[in-house]
């Protein structure tokens, strides 16, 4: 059942990205471009997604998950160096191409060679990430 839920969740996620226009890089870059013809759509997508999820978090307080033993425990609340550096690097890539991981997969079938090249580069970046993390940790202990 967990596997069926996963497929349904992925399908809804993908349809939501398609309907909202987030698979169109112009809309993402248009939202980030406050000095150009600013496109407010992304703010509505974020708002629309956060509302049902906020309700879901409230529901986790009084019950157990349907197909699991317990809900995930929230990570330690510290704001680490990796969170800040990683988010900044991610934002730079997001701005350059107008794609983040979810929409990159969702638009893979109609994104042409460019879409495929982005996903392959992203996968390569994910494989490099642990090495970057080690280097950053070494630099931090050395200083």
């Amino acid at each position, binding site marked *: 059942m967990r596997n069926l839920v996963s497929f349904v969740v992925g399908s809804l996620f993908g349809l939501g990205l*398609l309907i*909202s226009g987030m*698979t169109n890089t112009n809309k993402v870059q248009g939202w980030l471009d*406050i000095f150009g013809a600013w496109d407010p759509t992304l703010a509505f997508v974020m708002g629309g997604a956060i509302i049902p999820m906020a309700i879901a978090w409230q529901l986790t307080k009084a019950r157990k998950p349907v197909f699991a033993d317990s809900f*995930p425990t929230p990570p330690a609340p510290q704001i680490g160096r990796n969170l800040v550096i990683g988010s900044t690097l991610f*934002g730079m890539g997001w701005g350059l191409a107008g794609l983040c991981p979810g929409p990159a997969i969702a638009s893979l079938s109609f994104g042409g060679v460019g879409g495929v090249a982005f996903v392959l580069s992203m996968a390569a970046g994910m494989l490099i990430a642990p090495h970057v993390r080690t280097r950053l940790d070494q630099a931090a202990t050395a200083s």
Partner: protein
Amino acid sequence: MQVDWIYGLVGGGIIGLAAAIFLLFNARIMGASGIIGGLVDGSGKSDWTERALLIAGLFLAPAFGALIMGGSETNITGNYGVIVAAGLLVGVGTRLANGCTSGHGVCGISRLSLRGIVATGFYIVAGGLTVVIFKHLLGVI
């Protein structure tokens, strides 16, 4: 153009519903970079099927949707240097930060997670500055 925000709100609601179902049924966080990353580097071996099926749905549903709509535009740049650089940055950055727009943005902000809010602040400011520099100053994108 005027109705785009309605599509945004409806599409966003469906994304939020998907994240809510994943949490309430499977007790999992719907973070795209974490789910993909676990498949790419092998760290998600124990729940490989669950991850792979989510990604399959994420790929197939919009593929059919776009087919029915008669195609959908991505307007991705034709500059492969930019594409590769952007992909590498997104891959490294999301794994280093342990999350992206869906994990930190949708799932984190909705439970008022400080990490989610800080991460989202940084990637939005970095993204905005990147667009200003590379579009308006350098004219690359």
